[in-house]
């Protein structure tokens, strides 16, 4: 399921650690970078590449919020709901995001472009409220800024 490049990367990651299992999370993230999420077949492949029991891969993957064991959209929006963001109007901005995308947290837009997830403190409280779209962080959000960001990250659509 994984590309040869991904497999090679995972083997390279494995070689950095004294114990192969340490490479598990970076390996899963690498698989996720390619596939968007980590399906069971990819987990089995990672297990095999690292020499880790396949049962262990599943239990570890499911523990972490940012390892997606179910399909997600092209971009995952991590919207902070923790205290500093909440104090600075995050709820209102979140409602705007929900309205714009037509989805609730945990859901993916019908066109498969965005999955909205609620995140805990992103350690960017100086620009609260903030969110991460894909791998980019955006702060000091307002409804207008959100619209612009969604426009930019959606390829101008």
């Amino acid at each position, binding site marked *: 399921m994984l590309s040869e490049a991904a497999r090679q990367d995972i083997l390279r990651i494995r070689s950095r650690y004294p114990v192969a299992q340490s490479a598990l999370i970076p390996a899963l993230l690498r698989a996720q970078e390619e596939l968007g999420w980590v399906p069971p077949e990819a987990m089995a492949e990672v297990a095999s590449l690292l020499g880790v029991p396949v049962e*262990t891969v599943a239990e*570890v993957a499911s*523990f972490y919020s940012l390892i997606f064991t179910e399909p997600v959209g092209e971009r995952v929006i991590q919207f902070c709901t923790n*205290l*500093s963001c*909440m*104090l600075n109007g995050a709820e209102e901005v979140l409602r705007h995001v929900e309205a714009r995308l037509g989805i609730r947290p945990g859901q993916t837009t019908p066109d498969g472009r965005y999955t909205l997830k609620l995140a805990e403190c992103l*350690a960017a409280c*100086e620009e609260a409220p903030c969110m991460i779209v894909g791998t980019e962080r955006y702060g000091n959000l307002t409804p207008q800024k959100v619209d612009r960001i969604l426009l930019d990250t959606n390829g101008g659509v």
Partner: protein
Amino acid sequence: MSERVLLRYVGLPDQDDIERYLRRGGYDALRRALRELTPEQVVDLVDRSQLRGRGGAGFPTGRKWKFVPKDAPAKYLVVNADEGEPGTFKDRTLIEGDPHRLIEGMILTCYAVGIRHAFIYLRREFYLGYRKLERAIAQAYAHGFLGEQILGTDFSCDIVLHPGAGAYIAGEETALLESLEGKRAMPRLKPPYFPAVMGLYGRPTVLNNVETICCIPWIVQYGPEWWLAQGPPQLYSVSGHVARPGVVEAPLGTTARELIERAGGVRGGRRVKAFYPGGTSSRPLTAEHLDVPLAHEPLAQLGSMLGSAAVIVMDETTDMVKVIARVCEFYRDESCGKCTPCREGTVWVTQILDRILQGRGRMEDLDLLESIAKNMTGTCFCPLGESVPPSLRAGLEDFRDEFVAYIRGARTPVEMPVRIQEGVLAPGG
């Protein structure tokens, strides 16, 4: 106001590029150490600087380093860059703004303790930080500051940048090690798994916070006396209802009032109702505590703590019940699930608070919350569960009237943005 030390170069253009860093005096401390000091002398400098860990526990760094047996066959340095305590963003700031400082500090630490392999456990959400550190590490290798026989000595050192994957509990040191070993981030028993004795892969491990390590080059370069005379420098993350939230560098023991002033004062000229002095794991304080020095002992005496030195300011418009509910939900969702009081207590508490916010609370619920807080104190496996009672107690003692208002129907019911998972726990009604 002392001259900036830790933040001195943060924000300057291209500080993350090694050429700039070098030109601004970077890696001088490392050169000094390798050429003029023995490892023991470096440890001594850190010890005398009285540096205490900046991750939250405040453990004396020099003493921690000395726990590591000298002749252990394998030892590791692990830097906790999993900054996740709500309201804290100083480590992220240092990583993005001065990544080479962290690397230099790590190499110095490895030299001091005789460590060959170092890891940075970096919060997954720090995508920008990851790119910067990746580049900085590569540059350090290219310049011979990492790898074999650094600067012509027989000291060698390697750094592996390791991503987390979204779990606040992985910021707890033993859970971090579990995660670094590729497992579920569940905390370990102490004893025997004190990291300095049985850490990564069961080997002695120095586990330090980012800010702590960033202090090391300054201490080595300018000495402990100079360091202490600077305050010593402490980073406070100030956010919430302030006009200019940001990282404030100030001497350890600065008061909340002073920090809020430096952060531009309360927004809209309002008054402080409450503030967390050390992230949401600390007990929130009220306006009467604005002049308490924000340091370890004074805060501990108030039943709070310095923790990660994250000051979250809440003004008079703040709904404290909602704040406490949101804070408790955070711990509920981040709980690893290992121990009974945390796993079950956080759920119960959030269910009660949710019901109160929805206008279906009862007066007995206040006694019940107090009882649950008591039952979660001193009974949890790790500090995560223990972080819930402080907020609950502050709520019930200092802001009781707000809870009563909801119970008596004097406040409009509120729906929290983060709801209890449907299908797993059905909120009543």
